[in-house]
């Protein structure tokens, strides 16, 4: 397949691996922020090919994993309301909230919860069900948020009065900033998310290079992309030349996608947000602006107080928070594979198809 197969070439992969390993005498810790990168690294068996001095650590880049338990409880509450059709991306459906998940809500209590592939499907459902209130669960980072913004604008143009979005969207650079400010983990380089960067460009990562002197490489998702990015980071560390580089040039421009940025800014504004396992990160979430507030699910429904179970203190052994911050790995967790597995996940890192724990569980011996 075009633009996929060429970037999987085994011969080129071998040469990249050799070049990387030749340069790696001292330990280097690289963090991949994005869940899809975590999965790709495992899927292609990249870790085993690299010298042991190269440590790959996963960050909080799985929007499913970092959705606060209380936000999921709000979603479940909305889905139970009269005449509501609750639409969501597939990966959210099994994530546990404080007490339960959307999947259990659907199964046990018959709430009308439907998996959709796109907000456009949810809009179709709203048009076809004028007597129902259709709510879309807005999850995802900057890759997804512009399409949700576009969907809301479409709803406005079409004059829909039964369509709402429950926005739990989050932003990546503030999370990276919070991680660096906490000083909890030593990072020598960032493998930056390719498709988030397709939207936001390279500029939002510059503070990492300038203030923290950590090199960043914006990376694609095929094996050659990831290997090349690792080589670029290792070289940057050797040469001391620290900046933000784009490896994924075929899909990322320096300025990003300005049309998408504009549409995003027209519909959303930044707001403080709770990240599961991390806590509040300032200006890291997205709220629907006043002009489109009639589509905001939070204003449509009068919600009761949800208690904050985002610290998972009632599941004291779950260390998803530490894993999301790159401080621990799944094998450090006492629950990993014993109590917590993909069939009975305890924390979000195991439930999400791209969670670090799920990746370790599925792909590592």
């Amino acid at each position, binding site marked *: *397949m*075009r*633009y*996929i197969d*060429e*970037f999987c*070439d085994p011969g*080129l992969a071998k*040469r*990249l691996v*050799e*070049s990387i390993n*030749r*340069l790696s005498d001292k330990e280097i810790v690289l963090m991949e*922020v*994005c*869940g*899809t*990168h975590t999965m790709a690294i495992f899927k292609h068996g990249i870790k085993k090919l690299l010298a042991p001095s190269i440590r790959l650590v996963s960050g909080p*880049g*799985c*929007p499913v994993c970092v959705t606060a338990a209380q936000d999921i409880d709000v979603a479940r509450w909305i889905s139970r309301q009269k005449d509501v059709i609750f639409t969501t*991306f597939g990966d959210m459906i099994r994530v546990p909230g404080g007490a339960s998940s959307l999947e259990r809500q659907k199964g046990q209590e018959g709430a009308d919860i439907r998996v959709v*592939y*796109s*907000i*456009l*499907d949810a809009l179709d459902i709203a048009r076809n069900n004028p007597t129902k209130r259709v709510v879309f669960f807005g999850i*995802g*980072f900057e*890759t*997804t948020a*512009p*399409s949700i913004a*576009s969907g809301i*604008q*479409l709803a406005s143009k079409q004059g829909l009065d039964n369509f709402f979005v429950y926005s739990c969207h989050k932003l*990546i650079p503030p999370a990276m900033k919070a991680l660096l400010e906490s000083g909890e983990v030593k990072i020598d380089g960032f493998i930056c*998310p*390719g*498709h*988030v960067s*397709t*939207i936001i460009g390279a500029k939002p990562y510059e503070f990492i290079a300038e203030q923290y002197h950590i090199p960043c490489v914006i990376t694609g*998702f095929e094996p*050659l992309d990831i290997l*090349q990015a690792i*080589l670029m980071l290792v070289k940057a560390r050797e040469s001391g030349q620290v900046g933000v580089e784009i*490896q994924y*040039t*075929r*899909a*990322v*421009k320096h300025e990003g*996608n300005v*049309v*998408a940025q504009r*549409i995003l800014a027209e519909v959303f504004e930044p707001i403080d947000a709770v990240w599961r396992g991390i806590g509040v990160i300032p200006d890291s979430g997205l709220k629907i602006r006043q002009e489109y507030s009639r589509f905001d699910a939070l204003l449509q429904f009068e919600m009761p107080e949800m208690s904050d179970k985002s610290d998972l203190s009632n599941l004291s052994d779950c260390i998803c928070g530490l894993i999301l911050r790159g401080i621990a790995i799944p094998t450090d967790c006492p629950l990993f594979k014993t109590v917590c597995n993909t069939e009975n996940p305890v924390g979000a890192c195991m439930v999400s198809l791209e969670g670090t724990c799920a990746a370790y569980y599925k792909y590592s011996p």
Partner: protein
Amino acid sequence: MCLGIPVKIMKISDSLAVVEIGGVKRQASLALVEDVRVGDYVILHAGFAIQKVDEDDARESLRLLEEIGICDI
């Protein structure tokens, strides 16, 4: 960070396109991109094209990759 895949634009009507990968066709919104034509490749994510794939950049990337290991360090 999200499932974005390179697909080919087969047909455009207003801001909707029919896109294709491996012979499988799907509809996609072009609301987030400009200047795309039939035959172009775009990155598809959650039903939207989020960027045009730059063919020249892709070719250049591959050329650089092929040089690695031959004239590297």
